[in-house]
């Protein structure tokens, strides 16, 4: 699919909007439908779309493995960290009321950061699974080549 000009042009046009829509779903999740999980999945889907059109190697240079793996853990840590922040500020674990002077504002702040954590983890895990599945085949080919070269020597 790498050489299909229609796909490349349409993909280039659409991917920014998919990623923007993911961010909209993320930050508008308090008011409309959506939230961290959906935003993470849509963001990952946009990047998977990029990988399908432009090739996995190209995407891997844009979104490297190390970043994806860091995202997987960082999201959970951010979520748990919001809980710990509540503890440090004198409330219960995951108690958002104490995160700000104004109780309601504290709730907003807590929900916001928690949803960001969910989105980061979900996006990271989806991309990692996709990378793992998509690169298996190539790894096997490379191993086969290496084995054959080894026998030749």
């Amino acid at each position, binding site marked *: 699919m790498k050489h299909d000009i229609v796909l490349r042009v349409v993909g280039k046009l659409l991917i920014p909007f998919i990623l923007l829509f993911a961010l909209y779903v993320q930050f508008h999740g308090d*008011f409309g*439908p959506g939230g961290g999980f959906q935003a993470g999945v849509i963001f990952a889907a946009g990047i998977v779309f990029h990988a399908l059109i432009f090739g996995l190697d190209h995407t891997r240079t844009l979104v490297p493995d190390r970043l994806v793996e860091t995202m997987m853990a960082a999201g959970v840590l951010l*979520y748990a960290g919001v809980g710990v922040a509540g503890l440090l500020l004198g409330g219960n674990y995951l108690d958002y009321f104490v995160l700000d002077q104004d109780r309601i504002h504290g709730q*907003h702040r807590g929900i916001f950061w928690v949803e960001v954590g969910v989105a980061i*983890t979900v996006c990271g*895990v989806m991309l990692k699974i996709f990378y793992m599945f998509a690169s298996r085949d190539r790894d096997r080919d490379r191993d086969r080549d*290496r084995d054959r070269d080894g026998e030749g020597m």
Partner: protein
Amino acid sequence: MAIAVVAMIRLRNLFAVVVLSGIYSFLMATLLVALDAVDVAMTEAAVGAGVSTVLLLGALHLCRSEEAKPAHRPWLPLAVSASTAGLLIYGALGLPDFSDPEAPIHQHVAPRYLQNEVDVPNVVTAVLASFRGYDTLGETTVVFTAGAGIVALLRRRRKGGGQEPPKP
């Protein structure tokens, strides 16, 4: 949806089955929109129809695209599924009518959620992130564990050399 499921069972070509399961997911998302569960519909469309279709196609790329003939007739699984379906339908008969305001679920904690003491207009987000924050933390951890499991299973061979990995 029923047609898609029957076709998925009958077909032996796995590529067609994957595409049909994507169609099934989109139909399911439409049904969820009709039930006013937009959040779930979005998830279904993105995960069920989008990402998992891509993942299944990626897995299909690694193995043969024709399903093998089953070794024996699947009567026992069929009986188990049929009896489970029967029990579920029997249980569903006891539920209150659809959109009945007197249903117990609307009398218990739902009014407190809807009073909106956290002042977040989307009740789903409020329930998920605030009232049931522990649940969502657990779910996020589950997602993380799934990713970590995949990494642990599939990455081993980088160091292992020519050793054939277990089939996924």
